[in-house]
């Protein structure tokens, strides 16, 4: 705290000398009424997630996955940060045996059991 006071005293002196308007040292961006918003202050992963959601994207899988028909025209879209991802297909609701298979980029693949279409779509993580 003493350091901050010293810094403030020095800055003030210098600014007064050069005729610059003194801005509040440590509060540059704050709303009119004093409490910052997430837009101003969120950082790190929280910020990246918020910004992506604002653009309508969900790279961190926060929202429930979309429902797709699984047909050739409307395949299940599988986001992936690489070139392949494991898919587990519950062919019918309440099935206890899951059908696992690797989904590769390129043409849509079909589940070996029920035939639903799955398409890998490449996604970048925000950074």
């Amino acid at each position, binding site marked *: 705290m003493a350091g901050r006071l010293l810094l403030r005293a020095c800055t003030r002196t210098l600014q007064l000398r050069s005729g610059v308007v003194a801005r509040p040292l440590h*509060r540059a961006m704050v*709303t009119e*009424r*004093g*409490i910052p*918003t997430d837009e101003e202050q969120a950082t790190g992963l*929280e910020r990246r*997630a918020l910004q992506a959601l604002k653009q309508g994207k969900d790279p961190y899988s*926060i929202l429930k996955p979309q429902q797709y028909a699984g047909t050739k025209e409307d395949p299940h879209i599988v986001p992936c940060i690489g070139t392949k991802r494991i898919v587990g297909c519950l062919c019918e609701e309440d099935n206890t045996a899951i059908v696992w298979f690797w989904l590769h980029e390129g043409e849509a693949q079909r589940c070996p059991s029920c035939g639903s279409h799955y398409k890998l779509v490449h996604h970048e993580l925000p950074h």
Partner: protein
Amino acid sequence: MAHQAHAYHMVDPSPWPLTGAISALLMTSGLATWFVYKTTTLLFLGTTLLLLTMFQWWRLIIRESTFQGHHTTPVQKGLRYGMVLFITSEVFFFIGFFWAFYHSSLAPAIELGGLWPPTGITPLDPFEVPLLNTAVPLASGVTVTWAHHSIMEGARKPALQSLTLTVLLGLYFTALQAMEYYEAPFTLADGVYGCTFFVATGFHGLHVIIGTTFSMVCLLPHTHYHFTSNHHFGFDAAAWYWHFVAVVWLFLYISIYWWGS
């Protein structure tokens, strides 16, 4: 550089859970040695370690959340569940003491004179200091709600004032109860009345102290602009805990002070 593709927080290892567990062991065994051998070494050690753990662990959480941004929406949701479950467990803790009180008071034993309050006990007048001690938590419930709305609307000064007021009311309550304890005409050793009274109100008082400390610890980040109008979970948790403490007092007042007098 590998970034995680999920929104959860995989915490880094830290020593504070271990020091917390050790402090719990030292405090409980310290209490026992204090009761039996009248030495306070273990208890003192345990309390010091507990204070250190609390300071360091919560400092670490503030760093991870406010400064590093690990508390995404799913993480916050998990923290909310955690706080709610914790408060629920505390509710059941108090239910035990209310059970003990009603068990003994609804059908008073012949050794007590067959009546409640037992023969020889002069209960505290519920319409004197206890009534003031009811108005105080109710008022602090209002101030903490005022603080919450101020934070959500982005109004810093009213939030600071109302939060400070909440802390002051909490301290006032503790002071009044301490005075009542000192002046009470009966003690913990006065049969089942004294036992149920002091154990129930004593644990409640401890929770008031915890709640007041929690609110005080919220004041500090708030003055340093840590909270945003949308993301201020530490404050939410403190406010919930405070409401819980106030509601327990209401039940205590109605059961033990009023009905039980």
